[in-house]
């Protein structure tokens, strides 16, 4: 099957695939930043002591986690114009991806913070550090180490999820591959080119996570 | 019953068993001691094929260990007690004891349970039949592990440092069970530093160092007049703890 690949057509569409690849990178990077901001905010709300401030964070995280990204995407895509907000598809996509990944990031950061032994906080208390000082100087630096790998994992999920934006006609890697399929009736060539693009991103991030883990695991804690 | 002749084993370039020759007769109780890394655990792990070896011959109850097909049957004849108990955490004490008899020996559940209850009673755990391992103390867990091995009605029992993971106050409850077993005539090889146990029931004590058997002697000679300097050195260290 792969022997019959029309590499000439694939090369001919290389510029479009490359553009799609870059668009996927850009979309994912922008959404990653947005998700990070939302994740930190939601996590900060979820771990602070006031119940009525925790509620919105919990509702946000659970609502996102219990519904599919595609439904969230359509919710914004078909819903925002109703509110008189007309945005380009790409921006809608970035908002949807940020909202979606933000909820997962909040969970990742939260479990990172909860993984810090209670004794660390108590040691900080006993030396007279305030809540914010304990967070900034003791808890967060340690929590960050354990969250890097899952955050990279979330980045991989984000990149793959961004393919759904092709369904609201954002031109990215998946959409670019479909162009070969549609223009030339060559779905195999289009999908192979697309898959290769994602595989590259996957292996780069996966080895980055591995390298980071190897270098930064805390001595004595694996 | 157990016959090593010229057995050698390497871990990569590390020579862990050097030219071991040793015979253990039926009903004999042999205690193996030596510093850590001397190869004593490896020695008894070879006897039921938990560790392969590279050269030499090992006969257990007439079966050549080189015969991988006979190994499975042989293991049912040789009980093994681990330093870290290795009880199955998802099974109760009684289920731990009856699992292999039911699935390997093909006993009926009723038969296996009858046998298992009797053995748990024998090791003093009649009231712990339905407890899970995490609900038991270390000494109790190790006694369940001994009952688990006995339930297969083995001809030989091997013990790999059975008391070294235990708190001091629990060591005796396990040793008492082992002494009882020795007095019943079980063939036993025991890797341990419990010299009181060796004095009481061992027929022979073996001292190993750097993969080789340095000295073999009956306990009275071993403790009062060891022949080798290395044995004396080792004994003075562990007896003065």
């Amino acid at each position, binding site marked *: 099957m792969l022997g019959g690949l029309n590499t000439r057509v694939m090369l001919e569409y290389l510029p479009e695939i490359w553009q799609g690849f870059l668009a996927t990178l850009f979309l994912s990077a922008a959404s990653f930043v947005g998700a990070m901001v939302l994740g930190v905010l939601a996590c900060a709300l979820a771990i602070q002591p006031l119940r009525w401030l925790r509620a919105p964070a919990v509702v946000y995280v659970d609502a996102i986690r*219990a519904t599919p990204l595609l439904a969230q995407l359509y919710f914004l895509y078909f819903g925002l114009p109703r509110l008189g907000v007309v945005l380009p598809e790409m921006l809608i996509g970035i908002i949807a991806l940020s909202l979606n990944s933000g909820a997962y990031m909040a969970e990742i950061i939260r479990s990172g913070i909860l993984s810090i032994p209670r004794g660390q906080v108590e040691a900080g208390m006993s030396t007279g550090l305030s809540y914010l000082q304990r967070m900034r100087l003791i808890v967060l630096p340690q929590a960050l180490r354990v969250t890097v790998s899952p955050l990279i994992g979330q980045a991989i999920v984000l990149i793959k999820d961004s393919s759904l934006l092709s369904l609201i006609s954002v031109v990215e890697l998946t959409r670019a591959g479909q162009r070969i399929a549609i223009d030339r009736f060559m779905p195999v060539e289009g999908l192979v080119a697309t898959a290769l693009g994602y595989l590259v991103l996957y292996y780069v991030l996966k080895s980055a996570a591995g390298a980071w883990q190897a270098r930064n695991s805390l001595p004595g804690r694996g | 019953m157990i016959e090593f002749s010229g057995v050698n084993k390497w871990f990569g370039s590390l020579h862990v068993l050097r030219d071991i020759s040793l015979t253990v007769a039926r009903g004999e109780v042999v205690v193996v001691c030596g510093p850590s890394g001397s190869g004593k655990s490896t020695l008894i792990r070879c006897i039921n094929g938990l560790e392969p070896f590279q050269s030499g011959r090992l006969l257990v109850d007439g079966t050549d260990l080189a015969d991988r097909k006979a190994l499975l049957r042989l293991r049912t004849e040789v009980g093994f007690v681990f330093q870290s108990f290795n009880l199955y955490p*998802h099974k109760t004490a009684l289920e731990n004891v009856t699992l292999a008899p039911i699935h390997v020996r093909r006993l009926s559940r009723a038969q296996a349970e009858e046998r298992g209850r009797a053995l748990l009673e024998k090791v003093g755990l009649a009231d712990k039949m339905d407890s899970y391992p995490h609900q038991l103390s270390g000494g109790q867990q190790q006694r369940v592990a001994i009952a688990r091995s006995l339930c297969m009605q083995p001809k030989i029992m091997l013990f790999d440092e059975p008391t070294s993971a235990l708190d001091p106050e629990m060591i005796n409850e396990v040793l008492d069970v082992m002494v009882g077993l020795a007095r019943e005539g079980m063939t036993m090889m025991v890797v341990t530093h419990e010299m009181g146990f060796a004095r009481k029931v061992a027929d022979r004590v073996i001292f190993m160092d750097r993969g080789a058997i340095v000295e073999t002697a009956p306990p009275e000679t071993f403790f009062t007049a060891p022949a080798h300097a290395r044995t004396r050195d080792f004994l003075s260290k562990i007896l003065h703890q």
Partner: protein
Amino acid sequence: MVWFYLERIFGYWPVLLKGMGMTIGLSLLSLVIGVAIGFGFGIIRAGRNRWAARALGLYIDFFRATPFLVQVFIVFFILPQVGIELSAFAAGVVALSNMAACFIGEIVAAGLKAVPPGQSEAALASGMTRAQQMRLVVMPQAVRIITPSLVGQFVLLIKDSSVVSAIGLLDLTRSGWLIVQSVPNGLLVFGIVGVGYFIICYPLIHLSRRLERRGQAAFL
């Protein structure tokens, strides 16, 4: 105004109901197949045959690396080229269960490796065959370790099933997409669709969290 739209949307309730049924049916069927194959994958991945484990690892990596949408297209558009024609439903089941099997396979492999080696040694020492060790001693413990992540995986599978709407399968998401063409209020329509998913997924998320907490408390 909102009531007006709500009334119109509920005029479409048979479509919504059909979509919900499809989402549940598709997910359940793929779940059963995916779990069965996934356990097989896991045993091979954690097994002693290095080459089989590595070859399977490459296959699994491919499906972990590419978006599910691309996988759905591969099943729907490439398989017919090698003579395997599938209906949209069958294509959905194949793609979903295959992806689930890949993710579950890695979870199962990790669970098997997390069981202490002393456990299979003890089983070995009592004369059990490799199959008996796996069935009676190692797998039951691995299953306890991985149950929370497995349930989490089920939630992902249900949500991923929405992607199959892209090849025209009338699931819950697709039913929303159809309704929004004639009732132009995306917030309400997909709000209702979201509630549908929430009803299915939220109990599972809750269950997964509880299992996780219980596992930490009781087992170790």
